C-alpha cells in the first residue's frame, strides 16, 4: 500500500463529495419551495421577502449560489436551518453521532452473530444447520426494515412489554434506559446485516475449505479445527471486510427508516424531517454528511483490507 495509492483514494473521496454536492444542490434548487417564504412564513410582507432574498443571495445566478454554498461547506458552514433558524452543521453532526452509535452497536452485534452462523453453516454444509441458517438469512434479507421494526414493536414492546417501543435517551443521561431504547433499533438494523454477512461468510468459507491450500494443510496432518481457525477463517473473513464496508451504505439508508420508526433523532430522522419541511440547508448538509460517511467507511475498509492482506501473505 503505497502513499500514492492512499493519496489517490483521498482525491477520489474529494471527487465523490464534489459530485454529491452538485447532485444534492441541484435537487434542492429544483424542489418546489421558496426559501424566503419558508423562512419568513406565509404572512410575510413582500418588502421583507425581497430584502431577505437579497441578503440570502437568492437573486444571484445559480452557479454563484452553488459556489457560495460550497465555499461555506468547505469552511464547515452549512447555513442556517429554515425550520429552526439555527446553524445546520452542529445539529447534523450531533445527529450523526447518534446514528453512528446505532451503526456501531449493530455492526458489533452483526459480527458476533453472523460469523459464527456462517462458520456453522459452512462446516455443516448441506445439513440441517446449514439449511436453517440459509432459511433464516433468506427471511432476514427479504424483510424490509419497517416490517421487522413493526413486528418487533408489536411483540417485544406491546405484547411482552420487555422494551420501550420508541424514543431516545442519551447514554450520558441514563445509560441503562439509553441502552434499553437502543435494543429494538439495533436488532432491526442488524437483522438484514446478519442475514447478508452470514451468507457471505458461509460461501467464502465453503470456497476456501475446498481450495488446494486447505487440502494441503489437512494432508500435513493438521486437525480439522486447526485448519478451520488458523487458516481457512482468516482467508474467508477477508472479503467480508469489504462487504461490511459496502453494507455501511445500506446501513445509512436503513437508519433512515429505523430512526423514523423508533423516533431516534439521528441523521436519518433529521433528513426525513428536513425533507418533509423542505428545509433545504438541512437536506443538503444531511445528504452530504451521509455520503462522506459512506466514502470514508469505504476508504478505511480498503486500507484495512490491503493491510490485512499483506499480513496474511507473509504469514
Amino acid at each position, binding site marked *: 500500500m503505497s502513499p500514492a495509492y492512499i493519496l489517490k483514494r483521498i482525491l477520489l473521496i474529494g471527487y465523490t463529495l464534489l459530485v454529491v454536492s452538485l447532485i444534492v444542490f441541484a435537487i434542492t434548487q429544483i424542489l*418546489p*419551495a421558496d426559501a424566503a417564504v*419558508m423562512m419568513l*412564513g*406565509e*404572512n*410575510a*410582507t413582500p418588502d*421583507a421577502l425581497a430584502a431577505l432574498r437579497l441578503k440570502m443571495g437568492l437573486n444571484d445566478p445559480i452557479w454563484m449560489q452553488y459556489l457560495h454554498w460550497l465555499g461555506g461547506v468547505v469552511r464547515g458552514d452549512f447555513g442556517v436551518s429554515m*425550520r*429552526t*433558524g*439555527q446553524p445546520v452543521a452542529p445539529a447534523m453532526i450531533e445527529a450523526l453521532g447518534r446514528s453512528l452509535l446505532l451503526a456501531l452497536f449493530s455492526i458489533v452485534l452483526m459480527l458476533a452473530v453472523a460469523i459464527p452462523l456462517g462458520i456453522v453453516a459452512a462446516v455443516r454444509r448441506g445439513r440441517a444447520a446449514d439449511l436453517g441458517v440459509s432459511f433464516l438469512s433468506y427471511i432476514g434479507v427479504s424483510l424490509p426494515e419497517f416490517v421487522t421494526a413493526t413486528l418487533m*414493536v408489536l411483540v417485544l*414492546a*406491546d405484547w411482552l*412489554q420487555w422494551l*420501550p*417501543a*420508541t*424514543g*431516545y435517551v442519551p447514554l450520558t443521561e*441514563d445509560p441503562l434506559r439509553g441502552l434499553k431504547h437502543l435494543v429494538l433499533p439495533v436488532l432491526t438494523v442488524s437483522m438484514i446485516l446478519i442475514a447478508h454477512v452470514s451468507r457471505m461468510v458461509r460461501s467464502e468459507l465453503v470456497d476456501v475449505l475446498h481450495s488446494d491450500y486447505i487440502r494441503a494443510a489437512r494432508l500435513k496432518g493438521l486437525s480439522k479445527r486447526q485448519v478451520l481457525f488458523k487458516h481457512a477463517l482468516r482467508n474467508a473473513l477477508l472479503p467480508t471486510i469489504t462487504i461490511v464496508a459496502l453494507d455501511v451504505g445500506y446501513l445509512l439508508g436503513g437508519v433512515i427508516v429505523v430512526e*423514523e*420508526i*423508533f*423516533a431516534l*433523532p439521528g441523521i436519518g*430522522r*433529521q433528513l426525513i*424531517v428536513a425533507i*418533509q*419541511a*423542505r428545509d433545504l440547508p438541512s437536506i443538503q448538509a444531511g445528504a452530504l454528511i451521509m455520503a462522506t460517511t459512506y466514502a470514508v467507511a469505504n476508504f478505511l475498509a480498503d486500507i484495512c483490507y490491503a493491510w490485512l492482506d499483506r499480513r496474511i501473505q507473509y504469514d
Partner: protein
Amino acid sequence: MPRIHRRDFLAASAALSGLAMSGIPAFAQTPRRGGTLRVSVDQAVSKLNPLVTRVNPEYLVAELLYSSLTRLKVDMSAEPDLAESWTNSADLTEWTFVLRKGLTFHDGSPCTSADVVATFEAILDPKTASPARQNIGPVTKVAARDETTVVFTLSAPFADLPVTLAYLNAKVVPAAVIKGGLEKLDRQAIGTGPFKLVSFEPERQVVVTRNDAYYDKARPYLDKIEVLVFPDVSAEASALISGDTDLLSTTPPTEFGRLQKASGVKPLRLASGQFCNVNFGCDQKPFNDVRVRQALALTVDRAAMVDFVTEGFGSPGNDTPLNPAYRFYADLPAKKADIAKAKALLAEAGYPKGLEATLIASDRPGQRTQLAVALREMAKPAGFDIKVETMPHATYLDQVWKKGSFYVGFYNMQATADAIFSLLYTSNAAWNETRWNNVAFDKLVSEARTTVDDAKRRALYAEAQKLMYEEVPSIIPAFFDLLAGQRDWVEGYELHPRGSVYRLDFVSLGANAPKRG
C-alpha cells in the same frame, strides 16, 4: 358517555366582571409537591415563541412557560391569570384589567403593564403574524394607565373579551424582547409561567422546571415536567401502558381501546367540539358552485363516518362547526345521505357525467386520511371521482393549508362560537380556508359579537349556522371526543374541552408514582 355541559356562564362572566374569580383547584386533598411528570405529545414542538405557536404540543409548552391575562377554566369561562381582576364600561367597548403585584419574568425582570401593552401591540402588528391578531376580539388600542392597569379599547361592543384574551397565542412576553427582536424567543423562553425552560430539543423533548417566582405560591406542584415527542402514536400509547410516561396528551381512537384495557392506566374521554372537515375552496371551480358542495355533502353517511373516523368515539356533524358542546349550538335536523338528490344537484350544476377532484389529507392525525378515503367511497355512486393524496403534515402546512381548494382540516374546539366562526369561516377569518366570503354570514357573526342580549344573540348564531348548513362551505361529518390517558398516580388532571389547554400546573403525583430524577 361523558356529559356535555351547557356553558351558560359567558354572559354571567360579563356581568360579574370585576369580581376576581379565585383559581382554587377542583380537588379537595392538598396535592403532594415535587416529582417529575413525563407528558407525551404526538408532534414536534417546533415553535417556542408563544405568539406564533400553532399546534397542540406547542400550546402545551407555551402554557407551561408563559401566562396570559386570563385563562380558560374547564367550563370554558375565564379566570384570572396575570390579571387579577377586570371591569368593563357599560357599552362593553372599554375593558380595564388590573395586573397582580410583583410579577416577574423568568430572567428576574418585572412584568408590568408596559409588557402587556407591548405584547398586544406586537400581536396586533401584522408583521408578527400571530394567529392571536384575529382571535382576541375587536381590540383597536391597548394602553397602560399605571404600572398594573391596562385598558383595552374595542371597535365595537364585545362581551367575550375576558375569554378571548385567554387565546392560546395571547401570551405576555417582555417588552424588551419585543424591542430587541422576537427571534430571541425561538430558542429561549422568558415568560411568567409556572415553569422555566431547562432544555429544548424540538423533535425529542422539552424539559421545564418549577418557577419559584411564580405568582401563585402554592403552584405548581411538580418540580419538573418532561414533554416527550412521539412521532408514532402507537409507541406513544405503549409508553404510557408500560409506565414510561405518566400522561398522554392526546391519542387517536385506534389506540384508545388499549388504554381502556391496560392496568394502572386511566383512560380519559370527553365530548368536545373537535372536528375534521373537508374544506372547499369556494372561490374556485368547481366548488364555487353551491350545488356541487351540497351534492357532495349529500353523499355522506354520517353515522358510518363516525364509525370509520372515530371508531365510535364521536358524534355526527351537520356541516356547522358548532355541536352541543358549544353554548350557542342550534339544533338543526340531522343531515342524511341522499344519492339521487346529490346526482340531480350535480347534473344541475353542469356535471351530469360526474366530477373529478383531488382531495388532500395530511398524515397526521390519521383520521384525516381515514375521512378522505371513506368520503371517496361514499361519493362514488353520486358520480364523484375523488383521488386521495396524502402528505406529511409539515409539507401540508407549508403547501396546502389555507391555499388548497379541497382538503381535510382538523380543528380543536374554540372557547366561543364567535371564536370558531372568526377563526375559520368569516371573510376576515385568521384562517379563511374556504374563501366562502359570505356577506350575510359575516354580518350575522359580527352582529352577534356585539349583542349582549342572550336570546337575540342565540337567534343570530342560529341564523349563521343555518346558512352554513345550507351552503356547506366545508363538510363537517363528525365531531371527535377528546381521548387521552394517564397513569393512576397522576392527580389533578382533567381533560379540557378546548383540546389545547392542559393546566399542568394543577397536576401532582400521587404517593405511588415512580421516583424520577
